[in-house]
């Protein structure tokens, strides 16, 4: 067996979360340091793996590592790296240290517990993106709820308990339906293949379900992923949770964990249920476009910063889903880049605003105004994050949004046109928010706001650098994701539409 890179990547945050509880007389590191160093080591390993990743290979997965887990049911502990998972674990590995650094105040007296949950989120996110066994995927998919539940419930705002409860109920509702579908899938596979298996590659390569079974199973899994993503109308948990959670929690939740929904659609739904996916695609595109516009419109009317960000994310998840179900290379790769761009911009928005919100202990927009003079750097960074979020050209979000729209436009003209309207709405919600929070007359309170210090600027700068970098040079993401997207297209059995007019001059 090759060197177990993926297992190590997964184990580092898990071990670190245990190390946090070693009595302090035996270790020289502080809690913060343990968490930070372990997440940096994870990042280092992910970079090493990314450098070794063979973009020219056609293999479905690389770096595979597999143990028998419950052999009776054909369950194995199988980790493997597809292009899409590599992109997402890289996002996870980059955001976690930033969150740990930026949230040193959030845990307060319960800092150790806070860090443990953050590390557990990282571990579960890595596991869910690496899982190549559907049962393992399901287990982690459910386990992910726990850290967020505690982070919201123990560190959140005044209505944290209600928010945490709502979050976990939505998560469990999706998970339950998925479990039922999973069991059904197992028996369907066992009947057809003669052996029970949860292997994602086996299920997508060998299984050929009858259409009604496939439809029901598709809907079961889709329900779970759509609640997680979240898609309108199953989205209402997100604003409540984001409003009550601390900025660090929200970054981990919206920036990373919600991607599990869209990742699941791309990596599980399409390969395993290709026919049903094709059948339901138009309806899902409809829902997605509706979500894009709906989220953007409601974001305009919000009175609370964190809720605004949540609705912006709902709009963006609409874009991601739209790109995935366009079944075009451009759309799907666009969605993959979108996940990265959205993760980065969400982190930028939540963390920058977090520094501001902390100073007033309040995130209502009306309480702010005229901060340009007192906090110019914060103003600037927020504007950059905001512009990244509304897909300003030159930022990663633009490449992603344009590709998603183009991919969709190739197949679904009217939905793409409607979704394009969101670029106007985006300008309104973001710039209006910026105008109300940062510009205008300086009032008594705004003079007391302290600007970001050097350390905080340094913490946030990787986000800005990466956003601009991928805006001008998205090739690494495209190259990494290309093969898995091509494989997915083959599973679904679709090809890219050709230009209406052949090129006059072929370059």
């Amino acid at each position: 067996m090759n060197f177990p890179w993926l297992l190590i990547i997964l184990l580092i945050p898990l071990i670190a979360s245990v190390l946090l509880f070693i009595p302090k007389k035996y270790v020289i590191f502080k809690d913060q340091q343990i968490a930070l160093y372990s997440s940096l080591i994870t990042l280092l390993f992910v970079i090493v793996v990314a450098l070794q990743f063979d973009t020219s290979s056609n293999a479905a997965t690389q770096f595979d590592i597999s143990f028998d887990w419950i052999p009776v049911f054909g369950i194995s502990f199988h980790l493997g790296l597809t292009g899409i998972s590599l992109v997402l674990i890289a996002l996870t590995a980059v955001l976690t240290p930033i969150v740990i650094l930026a949230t040193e105040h959030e845990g307060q007296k319960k800092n150790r517990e806070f860090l443990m949950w953050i590390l557990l989120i990282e571990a579960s996110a890595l596991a869910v993106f690496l899982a190549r066994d559907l049962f393992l995927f399901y287990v982690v998919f459910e386990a992910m709820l726990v850290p967020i539940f505690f982070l919201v419930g123990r560190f959140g705002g005044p209505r944290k308990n209600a928010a945490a409860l709502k979050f976990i109920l939505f998560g469990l509702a999706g998970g339950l339906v998925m479990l039922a579908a999973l069991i059904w899938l197992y028996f369907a596979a066992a009947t057809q293949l003669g052996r029970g298996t949860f292997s994602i590659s086996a299920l997508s390569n060998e299984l050929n379900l009858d259409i009604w079974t496939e439809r029901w199973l598709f809907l079961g899994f889709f329900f779970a992923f759509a609640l997680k993503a979240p898609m309108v109308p199953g989205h209402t948990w997100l604003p409540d949770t984001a409003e009550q959670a601390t900025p660090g929690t929200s970054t981990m939740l919206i920036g990373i964990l919600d991607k599990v929904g869209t990742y699941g659609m791309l990596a599980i739904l399409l390969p395993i249920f290709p026919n049903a996916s094709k059948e339901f695609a138009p309806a899902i595109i409809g829902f997605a476009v509706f979500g894009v516009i709906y989220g953007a419109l409601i974001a305009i009317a919000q009175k609370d910063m964190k809720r605004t960000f949540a609705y912006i994310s709902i709009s963006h998840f609409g874009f991601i889903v739209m790109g995935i179900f366009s079944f075009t290379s451009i759309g799907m790769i666009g969605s993959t880049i979108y996940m990265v761009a959205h993760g980065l911009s969400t982190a930028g928005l939540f963390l920058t605003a977090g520094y501001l919100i902390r100073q007033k202990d309040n995130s209502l927009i009306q309480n702010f105004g005229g901060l340009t003079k007192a906090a110019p750097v914060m103003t600037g960074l927020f504007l950059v994050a905001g512009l990244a979020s509304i897909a300003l050209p030159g930022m990663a979000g633009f490449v992603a949004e344009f590709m998603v729209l183009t991919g969709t436009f190739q197949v679904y003209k009217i939905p793409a046109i409607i979704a394009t309207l969101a670029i106007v709405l985006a300008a309104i919600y973001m710039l209006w928010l910026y105008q109300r929070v940062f510009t205008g007359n300086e009032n008594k309170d705004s003079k007391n706001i302290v600007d970001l210090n050097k350390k905080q600027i340094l913490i946030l700068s990787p986000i800005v650098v990466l956003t601009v970098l991928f805006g001008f040079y998205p090739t690494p993401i495209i190259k990494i994701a290309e093969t898995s997207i091509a494989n997915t297209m083959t599973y679904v059995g679709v090809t890219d539409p050709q230009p209406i007019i052949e090129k006059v001059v072929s370059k």
Partner: protein
Amino acid sequence: MIAAVIALPALSAALLLSLGNRTNKFGPWMAIGASASSFLIGFWQFLQMLARPEEERTVITTVYEWLAVPAAGFKVDFALQLDQLSISFVLLITFVGTLIHIYSLGYMSHDENQRRFFAYLNLFVAAMLLLVLADNYLLLYVGWEGVGLASYLLIGFWQHKPTAAVAAKKAFVANRVGDFGLSLAIMTMFIVFGSVSFSDVNEGVLGAPAWVSLTIGLLLLLAACGKSAQFPLQSWLLDAMEGPTPVSALIHAATMVTAGVYLIVRSASIFNASEVAQTAVIVIGAISLLMGAIIGAAKDDIKKSLAGSTMSQIGYMVLAAGLGPIGYVFAILHLITHGFFKAVMFLGAGSVMHATDDNVDMRRYGGLSKVMIFTTITFFIGYLAIIGIPPFAGFYSKDHIIEAALSHSWWAGAAVLFGAGLTAFYMTRMVVMTFFSKPRWEDDVHPHESPLSMTLPMILLSIGAASMGIILTNNHMFEHWLEPVTGFVEPEPPFSIQTITIITLSVVATGVLAAIWQYRKIAKVAPKKVSFAVTAARKDLYGDVMNEALLMKPGQALTRALNIFDKSVVDGFVNGLGLFTGGISSRLRKSETGYVRSYAMSIVLGTAILVIVLLIVRL
């Protein structure tokens, strides 16, 4: 080499913004240096281009592969196209841009955020250069939004003023409406031609069905309307005057707002292929040029009046660009001459404001010619140029547009002729109210001439405004220069050229005389009792009122209603489900009485029922 033209100001902007206050001292000089070296490199490239034979003048430099999805045949390079059209823009942008950098040194010397101002100016120059040098529509889009961002930042530069922040947002949103058109146009290009580069699209459109050129043409027109403040997306430009005056000169007069004209000329073959799209362009241009002129004639705010004038002059360019090959060259020619004379007038307005404690009300000016010699002379040259008095620059460019419009149709010709008269009227009004007539300023205002850093750019620009026309049109030089890129057809107006010149000049003279007669006496406060037409013009011909009534109010109502809907219906369903479950369980739990004996009873009964059921099933 050509990439350096963009890279220098971009790098300078990045340094100024990221290093912060450390660059306060040398920052402005670095920004000026970056812009000036861009100009020098651009000029060097221009000389090299002149040295090459005509057919080798288009050079495409691929810097790197920007976006490529080979599986889908999708490939967009970060590639720069240097040809006669783009180098003309490069020279205009960097030359005027550098002068305005220098002007800002004096104008913004008292502002504590001077460094940030210069960073934004550099950012603007870089983005604008990217816009005109891009070899494909997607990269153009990057520059297109880049200048929009710079414009947003600069309009809202004085962010502590709520009006400035609102105006900045309005400009950006209006631009984004245009971007909606540009995005869709680019997407349509891709699905039709499989490429978004200028060369592929321009060649592909020749063999394409009619709907292609019509669709793309109209979408590009929408984009141009947003960026160039043309009807119906014009209303942001007047508000944009909230920005510092150098910004108004550079971005909202000389360069950025003309990007729409560039876009149309760059897409010449698309518009050539669709007569409907062309007509739409002409109509939009005609409406805008008249609207702008009417608004300009009613405003007492000198900058807003100039902004109306800008809208009107860009209307001329757009109209000319809509005329097809007979007009493209003249649209660009007018764009360049306008860049000079409008910049000089905006800088003059800035100089006047600088002298009168930032007062913008022309009714409180008057007689400034006696105290501000350089400003008056340079402004007056700009004035002569814009109303089209030979041999000043505007005469050549505008006269050609009138010829071209007349050879297209009588109504286009009538619009531009009438516009020329209106231009003469409002510009004369402005000059009379500002520099001549009796002084009407407050007693504590002491107007004075501006420092050299401000007057020098004005002098240089006014030389251009005076001479550019003669130089460029001498021997049809400019027509021949641009012909390989845009194509050119000699206009064939129904009258002889001499007749047209005489008609135009007499219309202009009428406008001038009317203004002098009308403004022989000027009240310090604008008269209240005025005709309906004047009221309408003062209110920007109800552009804002319409936006508010048709878009803003319903939009706000919609977002509020949706928010309530989301809370009460969508989330209400979820919460209702929770309450329902809770309600049922709180009723069911009443059965937990706490009496051991009743529990025992339920066990017995349950067992009995189980036994009975089992017995029945077994039977």
